[in-house]
């Protein structure tokens, strides 16, 4: 009972993640994989994502410090990053990585820089949101996934 308000809040938070375009349908897939055997699956995956992608972000940053840009390498990194991001349903981050890749393909160094900055912002924002979300989720205890956005 007490949980209800928390759950309600959790549901609202979750909904806003979708509404604001931070996550997409893939996130729902993650949620669906969460069950009694895997009660914290979503959080685990997201945590793993942030841990692993931090490495890639670092690689990209370093690559961007070397001039001239090695677009091939940048593209390869970003491809990897995009793959992970899409796996957890990070919508905005994924969109930004697509833009970045396009800049790489067209050799647009400036565009790459800008895009990357934007990407890092989205990435950080999402991380914060996830953090809050999961924290609340833990408080709420094992709950059924709230109604899907769609």
């Amino acid at each position, binding site marked *: 009972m007490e949980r209800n308000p928390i759950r309600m809040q959790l549901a609202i938070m979750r909904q806003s993640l979708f509404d604001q375009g931070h996550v997409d349908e893939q996130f729902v*897939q993650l949620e669906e994989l969460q069950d009694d055997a895997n009660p914290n699956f979503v959080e685990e995956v997201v945590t793993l994502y942030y841990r692993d992608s931090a490495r890639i972000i670092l690689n990209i940053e370093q690559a961007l410090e070397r001039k001239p840009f090695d677009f091939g390498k940048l593209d390869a990194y970003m491809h990897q990053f995009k793959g992970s991001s899409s796996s957890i349903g990070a919508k905005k981050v994924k969109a930004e990585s697509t833009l970045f890749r396009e800049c790489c393909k067209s050799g647009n160094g400036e565009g790459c820089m800008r895009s990357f900055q934007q990407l890092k912002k989205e990435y950080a924002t999402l991380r914060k949101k996830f953090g809050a979300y999961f924290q609340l989720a833990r408080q709420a205890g094992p709950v059924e996934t709230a109604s899907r956005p769609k």
Partner: protein
Amino acid sequence: MTVEQIGSEGKDQFPIGMRVLAVDDDPTCLLLLGTLLRRCQYHVTTTSQAKTALKMLRENKNKFDLVISDVHMPDMDGFKLLEHVGLEMDLPVIMLSANGDTKLVMKGITHGACDYLLKPVRIEELQNIWQHVVRRKKKDRCNSGSKDKPHPDSGEAVGIGNVDNNGKLNKKRKDQNEDEDDERDENGHDNEDPSAQKKPRVVWSVELHRKFVAAVNQLGIDKAVPKKILELMNVEKLTRENVASHLQKFRLYLKRISCVANQQANMAAALGTADSAYLRMGSLNGLGNFHTLAGSDQLHNAAFRSFPPSGVLGRLNTPAGLGIRGLPSPGTIQLGHVQNSGNPTNDLSKLQSFVPGNHNTNILQGMPMSLELDRLQHNKSVGHIGELPTTDSTTVFPGSGNLVDARITGFSNNPLLGVTSNSLMLEGSSQQATSHTSVSAIGFQNGNALSDFTSIAPASNQLQDSKAGSQGQASPINCNAGQIIRSAPQEWNAPRKDAPYQSHALINSSIPINSAMIQLGQCLDRNNSIFHRTTDLDLVGPLNFVDPLSIKHGEGDNSIMEPSVIEKEGYLMFQPRPHGSHVPDNIGSLEDLASAMMKQEGGCNGYSLRTSI
């Protein structure tokens, strides 16, 4: 790296417990993939290193049933791993990537991947991957077995076909095709024996197939028995069994082709009488007759009746059993006919020739016109479509409406167009627009067949009006098999509507149209009406195609189709021809057309013409 050792306990409840090895350097993706696979109740082993994966696989080849691997990996390229696994262990491998570029997918397929999934991968996609295991097992097991059976490969083929024929309408058609067709189309067009035969697999190369078809043609589709075919072919190391199974497939293929134009239902009916269909097809070969038809108003009579593999269709006739005949040289025939553009009928014939075989089947039914159609069909199947666009088209419609030309051109551009145009044609026919030209405009040329069709339709009306001159009308037919059909309808319509079907030419052309119509009709509702009308075409009288049409219509006689099918098939098979490349396209287009038509009509989607080529 997590390793789960699973016994073979799951085997009994396959696919539950299927042992999967998942390889991906990205831990997030790997975790997700592993979890998804477990959710599907498979036994999962995951590793982030390709080298480790290979090691595990080499340790015990029987440890796993399936491998899923990412494409981009730091220690080893995914394709390389794919090759290794394929060569050493012969396990099915599924590629996974965030990049869905066609080129990449193609690369995966050519390297032997049995599937290519895009990240993020969904559970639905993983739930069916077990099919690849089954398929492979079956392939290994029944080498010599199922010759005629649609192989499970068809499924794979389908999938691959989809990938490969991305641009083609195949996909559309796929839905409509039976598995058999899929398999056939997918494999048939090329040198592959669909049914994997364990024993020294006979690869039906284009050359081989051509010989086969030639032999069948020579013998006559009804009389083509494996033994004789084998003798005629005179190929070393080919056994009677090989030929027999191939023949069976071929027959089915022809059926399918003929059905392409017609509704599936019709096809089913026709298929039932496959033999008769063959026979009919033989008559269709008369397309050659068509040729004669083209020459004179007598097309219908002369053409059909005799079905002499006249030179006109010349090539067309050669294909064994109508279908086959047309196939061989559909392209050539067309040209031949086209040249005749002088006669309206010729045009028709030309058109018809363009019309991929499909018409033929229909036409032959009774109507001389059908011959034309047949021819068209030939063309169609043959890839006339491809041809059409070529100079033939121009030649073809030299005079008349040049719809043919238009069509032809259209065709070449788009096999699909053909299809669509066909549908259009049918529609058009009802309208009987006199502007065949419009028909030609149909879009064939551009692949906007559908849109073109509509234009064609009006054109068809024109055809009617122009009756005599409606060569152009015929052209609609020609353009695509579908087109042909269209023209047929137009023509038909003409008779119908205009009762005064004066010129044979019209009729002739109408015949083709009819056939086209028939073909299309089957699919299209309109066609039905058209067909019915055709029956009314007493004018056509001699054409007899009324009968065929009605037959088709009523009886859903697919036999008509069959010839075309056969042609198509024949065409497809050895369509080395100049259109060669077209053929596949054409064929596909035929199907596409068929499907397009069907779709348009919302009717028969049973277009089995698969362009699996």
